[in-house]
Structure formats: C-alpha cells, structure tokens
C-alpha cells in the first residue's frame, strides 16, 4: 500500500499516516481481515517516529476501523470509513453554502485547492 506524508504540511504527521490507511480502504484495496504493516515497519519506511504511527493506528482503532492486538498487529475490522461519510456530508453542506452565497464552482474549487496547499 502507498504511504505518503508531507512534513512541510500543517496537517500533523499522524493524521496524514491515518489518512493513507483510510484512502486504501476507500479505494477497496484493504479488506476486512487484512493485516496492516507493523507500526515499526511504517515508521521505518516513512522515516517518522514510531509513536507517530502508533498514534495514527490508535485513532483508526478508535474509529472502529482496525483492531490492535499484541502479537497480531493491526487488523482491518471495517472498510466503510465513517470519515468518508462525514466528508460527503461536509461537502454537501459546503456546496449548499456556496449556492447560498453565489460562489461559483470555479471559485469554490480554487478555495479548496488553496486550502490543500496551506
């Protein structure tokens, strides 16, 4: 699976690491029962602190997406991330708000892109 983090981004690294797992789930490349690489391995390949990955895995566990067990590592328990549904709902609100204020699709896209580049 693909791992990517940008240390220059304002988004905390552990959030970016968790996002990598969510993206794989959303793309259907991770299925229930699949085992994630160990936190140590992920920390090694991304050259980030072990605790950063552990924090990411813990947040995924708190969302009910993975199960963390000593000796078994991180196992996927759900593949329909609640975060995805939340994001869809936020986008719906955003578009509704844009229509209300007369913001064009082009301007809204530009605003989103500039937010990504922060």
């Amino acid at each position: 699976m693909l791992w990517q983090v940008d240390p220059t981004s304002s988004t905390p690294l552990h959030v970016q690491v968790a996002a990598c797992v969510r993206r794989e789930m959303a793309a259907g490349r991770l299925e229930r029962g699949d085992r994630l690489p160990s936190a140590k391995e992920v920390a090694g390949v991304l050259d980030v602190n072990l605790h950063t990955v552990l924090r990411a895995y813990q947040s995924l566990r708190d969302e009910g997406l993975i199960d963390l067990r000593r000796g078994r590592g991180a196992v996927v328990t759900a593949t329909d991330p609640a975060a995805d549904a939340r994001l869809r709902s936020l986008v719906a609100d955003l578009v509704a708000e844009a229509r209300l204020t007369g913001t064009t699709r082009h301007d809204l896209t530009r605003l989103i892109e500039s937010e990504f580049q922060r």
Partner: protein
Amino acid sequence: MTTPAVTSASAGADRRPTHALVASALVGPLLTAAGLLLTYAVHDRLPASLALHWGPDGRPDRFASLTEAVVTASLMTALLPMLFVVIGAAWHPSARGPLAGFSGAVAVFLGGLLFGSLTSQRPGLVARVFPTVWLVPTLVLAVAVGVALWRWGHLPPPALDGAPRHLRTGALRLDVPDTTRLAWTGHAALPDVGILLVVLLAVTPLVVVAVLGVPWLLLLAVAIAALLVLTGSARVAVDADGLRVTSLFLTWSRVPLERVAEARTGTVSPLREFGGYGWRIGKDGSRGFVTRSGEALVVERVGEPPVVVTVDDAAEAAAVLNTLASRRS
C-alpha cells in the same frame, strides 16, 4: 532512458563466479577419490555383499558386490553435482555463484551419504542408511562448502560512474511535490496449500528416517518446516533506501535507489521463467520472489539482471520506486 551508467572496468571483468563454478565441479571427483581411498583402507573388513538400497522400513532391500557398490557411489558423487555445474555454465554469470554453492553442497552430501553407508557396513550387522556418525559431519560440511562456494562466486554489482541518470519519459511515476515522503509496502506470499505441499515434500523423507531410528531428525524436520513456512512469504518495501524483499531475518533482495534503472509492471509465469516458486534465479540471471502467476513488479537494475516480485498493485509500487529514484538524479 539513458544507457545504464557503469564503468567498463567492472562490467563483466570479474571471473570469480566462473572460478567458483569450476571449483565446485572438482568437489565431487575429489570426494570420490577420498571415498575410494577410505574404501580401500577398510575393504578387508567389509561384508562380501553390501547394502546398496534401503526400503521404506529402513531395511536394505538391494545388495551388491564391493565393486558394484563402489562404482555406484563414485559415479553418483562425481557426476550428479555436474548437472548444476552444466546449468551454471549455460546461465548468466551472476547465477553461477549460487549454483556453484548448490553443486558443492550436493557433492558433499552424496559423498558422505554413499561412502559413509558403504564403509560403515560390517559382516553380521544390519546396514544403516546414513550412520549418525557420518550424518552430522556431512551436513555441516555440505553447508560450509555450499556457503563458501556461493560467497566466492558472488558477483559484486558493477561500480556506478556517478553520472546522473534520467528516467524514461513514459516510466510510471507519481505526481507529488518533492517534499512528500513516499513509501510503499506489500507482500508476496505462497498460497497456504502451496506452502503445505512444499513442507510435506521437504519434510516427509526426514520424518520417515526419524521414525525408522534417528529420532533427533524430527527436530531437524520441525526446524525445516518452520523455516519453509516463514520463508513462504516475503515483505516488500519501497522507500528512500530503494527496494527490499525480506522474510524474517533474511533479505532476499535489496536494490538501492541509485541502482534502479526503471521499475515497471510485468506478467510472470514462475514455472516457465524461474522453474518454480519462492526465491528463484532465472536463466538470464534475474532474481525473483515469485509466489503466483500474473502481475509482478519488475525492477530493472543498472548493469545487473532485473529483480521480479509478485505483488498486487505492482504499478503503484513501480511508480513510487521510479519517483524516488528520479529524485536522486
């Protein structure tokens, strides 16, 4: 893509793999000579009829005269390992070291097995297939000779000339800012049924011999089974250090970024291209950790044969490797 940048001095000038292969061809004949001397030294203490073959019950079921037994042991020890030498001579030089090691180890094993059981026979005693006093030194020596020849025949990667290399325009890559740290993890694993089959094939003869009177061989059988299960799958990682294919403490392959000419996807047929599954060397010297047919990550190396690994999402792995490699040039 630019031509792989290797210095001419290191390109194929090293003759060590060939020397190791020639040396491995001598192991069988030398051990045969030693076996003949030993047989001659004890020939007046050997029974008139010598056990040549043992049945599944551990009892000899075929006997021969001393001359026939000696000729059989000599021919098998001297000639069987030659098969691997011939294969090594026909294959890519980088495959010769491993084949030299295998050939040498097989020669030692056969020499110890055949001359050991032959010279240990005494009139009135039931002949043993592989007397314990011969078994342990033979196995130790076989591993030592195999590893020594393998290491001797190891072809070091050609030196890089330091000139910048540019990735081919159409090569797979990711469009991400240079500040993004990229990595890819995956695994290549034999199906559970495949592992079970390999374990059964490898361990059954040992278990049979163990049950027939060498109980400690059960420990060896368990150890080999565990090793096979653990090496039936490999972790594949692509990061700022390049490509790594590992099982536990074993590193099957490591390709540093500066040696990546281009990573791409390919379709592999393990039996046709590598003659089997698991860690393999192809005729062209390519290294493969191949666990199934189909999609594979193919890493073309600078001045060396490619590395092939059967992973899902090989295109993504190739894109990550190419992107990281292009940042170095």
